[in-house]
């Protein structure tokens, strides 16, 4: 099975995810928005479903495609370590800049 990263490496699938971020949608809407044939959209939706990014909700004759929240919070976690390092680094830069302010009278 494809990982969420592989599934989202494709620009069309990222576009689908962007559209689903706004609200759940029917295949027909996605086909119209993206100007891709219905079989093409269905193929991309299957990949997104298999990667666990998208759910289908059956409502009478309609099939609504919607995003699942869990994988996106996983992506958040994936970035957290990097964010933590960058935050710590720039907090230190803050202190360096404060010291520069304090030193200023001596510089002149």
């Amino acid at each position, binding site marked *: 099975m494809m990982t*969420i*990263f592989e599934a*989202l*490496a*494709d*620009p069309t699938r*990222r576009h689908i995810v962007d559209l689903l971020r706004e609200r759940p949608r029917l295949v027909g809407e996605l086909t119209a928005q993206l100007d891709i044939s219905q079989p093409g959209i269905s193929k991309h939706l299957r990949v997104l479903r298999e990667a666990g990014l998208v759910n289908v909700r059956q409502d009478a004759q309609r099939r609504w495609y919607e995003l699942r929240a869990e994988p996106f919070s996983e*992506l958040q976690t*994936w*970035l*957290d*370590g*990097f*964010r*933590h*390092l*960058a*935050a*710590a*680094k*720039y907090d*230190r*830069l*803050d*202190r*360096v*800049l*404060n010291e*520069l*302010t304090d030193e200023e009278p001596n510089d002149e």
Partner: protein
Amino acid sequence: MNKLNVYAEPGKQEIVITREFNAPRDRVFRAHTDPALVAKWWGPASMHVAIESLDARPGGLWRYIHRSDDGAEYIHFGVFHEVSAPERLIYTYELAGMGGGPGIVTLTLEERDGKTAITETSLYPSVEVRDAVVQSGMEGGAAESYDRMEELLNTLA
């Protein structure tokens, strides 16, 4: 609040970081090009950084060495391509031994009311290299968290 934003969209080759500093931009710029200042903040806090070279002019080299407590060395290096004080800095970035090729980092500084907003965009040669950079941060970030936890536990003992 000096809020930090980090953007690394899946499937893209970029990492974008934005942050605001309570200082005029010539100082923020200087903190990126003066070796004595860079040594005080660059890289993970858990390691000592030695600024081996920092020649901030187009074509000038930079090379920083991190040493962890257990003696492991990490060599970060690159070349400056644009040094336009105080608004823009463009340089390549590579971690020796990681492979995959260098990233191109564009740092822009904008001043507003005595504060400076920076945008640091790093563009890597492939999604794989970009992900590896984020991933190394994940491991480093976790390591730092554990260090802090250990410190905390020591104070509790």
